[in-house]
């Protein structure tokens, strides 16, 4: 079943076009990787879904409702959790405060408390240091924290921008292992922007390759990584 469908959206920053009539769908329960070179419009795509930038044209439907042009907080409250590039922890807040922020939309306080315990169960390290300022955590720990924070909202879909950025390969392995575990145990849908197609191939799932603001190629991640089509699409057809 389609959870998120993006139809022909375009986004411009001043004179710069970041997305031109891009269309992507995400099905419930799947892992979708979005890859592509720098400046392909991957991050802009996530920002457009999150409501941080407003598309000039096109539709975005999430869980049956139109969300293009809606405020970020409203989209978040519909079950879309975003983990932006660079992690964006609130460095001046404690770890527990960071996590509790994620529960803003939940009326049921008991449920929120149980969620907090569950997140701590997944990331014991966070519980050990729950009263420490989030700013002192290492990159990998911050990545865990923002994933945990995104989980607190019990989202239907988590979108993550470059989870491996700035992390050691070993730490990246841990992050991905956790993500997949969560997907399977909670029925989460994952939308992951990842510059490394190899990583997508290792993890498995569906993959979309973006180039110059458009979808250039789409298919099964493992298959695509093996073939030549990916490399050609990545660098452009006969550009040089």
């Amino acid at each position, binding site marked *: 079943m389609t959870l998120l469908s993006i139809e022909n959206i375009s986004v411009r920053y001043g004179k710069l076009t970041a997305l031109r009539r891009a269309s992507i769908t995400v099905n419930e329960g799947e892992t979708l990787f979005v890859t592509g070179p720098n400046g392909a419009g991957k991050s802009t795509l996530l920002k457009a879904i999150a409501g941080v930038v407003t598309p000039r044209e096109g539709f975005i439907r999430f869980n049956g409702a139109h969300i293009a042009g809606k405020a970020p*907080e409203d989209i978040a409250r519909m079950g879309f959790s975003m983990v932006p590039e660079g992690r964006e922890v609130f*460095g001046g807040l404690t770890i527990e*405060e960071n996590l509790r922020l994620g529960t803003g939309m939940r009326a049921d306080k008991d449920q929120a408390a149980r969620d907090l315990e569950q997140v701590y169960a997944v990331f014991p390290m966070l519980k050990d240091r729950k009263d420490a300022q989030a700013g002192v955590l290492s990159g990998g720990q911050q990545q865990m924290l923002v994933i945990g924070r995104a989980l607190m909202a019990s989202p239907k879909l988590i979108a993550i921008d470059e989870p491996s950025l700035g992390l050691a390969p070993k730490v990246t392995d841990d992050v991905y292992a956790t993500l997949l575990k969560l997907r399977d145990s909670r029925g989460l849908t994952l939308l992951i922007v990842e510059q490394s197609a190899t990583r997508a191939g290792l993890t498995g799932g569906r993959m979309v390759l973006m180039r110059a603001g458009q979808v250039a190629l789409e298919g099964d991640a493992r298959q695509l990584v093996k073939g030549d089509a990916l490399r050609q699409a990545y660098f452009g057809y006969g550009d040089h």
Partner: protein
Amino acid sequence: MTAILQILFDALSLGSLYALGALGIALIFGVMRLVNFAHGDYIAFCVFAMLWPSIDAAAIVFAGNLPTYLLIPLILCVGAGLSVLSEILVFRRFRNANPATMMIASFALGFVIKYLLLMLYSSRPKSIDLWSNLSQQIEIFGARIPPLQVITICTTIVILLALTAFLKRTRYGLEMRAAAENFTMARMLGVRANLVIMLAFALSGMLAAAVGLILVTQTGTVDINMGANIMLVAFVATVIGGLGSLPGAVIAGFLIGGLSSLMQAYLPADARPFRDAFVYGAVIVMLIWRPNGLFSSKAAKQRV
């Protein structure tokens, strides 16, 4: 010893006023990067709200006749209301504008409020008798202190504690701190932008009202320009404290209050009228030394 005690009380009560003013400005700056030049005029507006509009020389006290336990909440509500109203009518439309544009808009709004007061009440200062018995001096350990100073200091401490509790212990406080650090990310976690910003404006307006009440009790006069000086000091305090840092604003407010009181006490008599000039001069020199303020927050450095 008594002289030192006297200076200490002067410093703390003056610093209290500055700290409350600086806090009002820093709260709004934190959530929307707005340096609110209308803040001083909020202060004056709240005080004038106690009077019936008239351009006569004598003040016609109206709401000011209410019993204290009604008057104070009423004036606080006036401050909050004016502040929230200015957010809805004016500043909401500048959310995406750059800080310079917002700053000029607030400057213009301040003038609109000031001249509205001039239109309704005339530009002449008027005297008003509000709790004047608080200004009669009493003796504490040999120093002659007006009770108002003690009340000012205590009120400020209570306000600071209440605000800290609000920010640290409540859900809205948490959301506000998060929004001050990274507004977009907070929104992506479901924090309602309009609510948080309106809350910040309401708190800031109440702080303006509190400053107004203290000021009018101290001086016994109302004047359309009465907020201007406090506002300027408060700006300077927020810059010294590191734009966006609430504790920094409060500490800097007290520092400037202390510096002013010391200069008042120890400058030669000829130089005393220039006290404020010396204070601002010292502040500018300090800014050269630390352009981001004494206690600059990381968030402010990145974005300002």
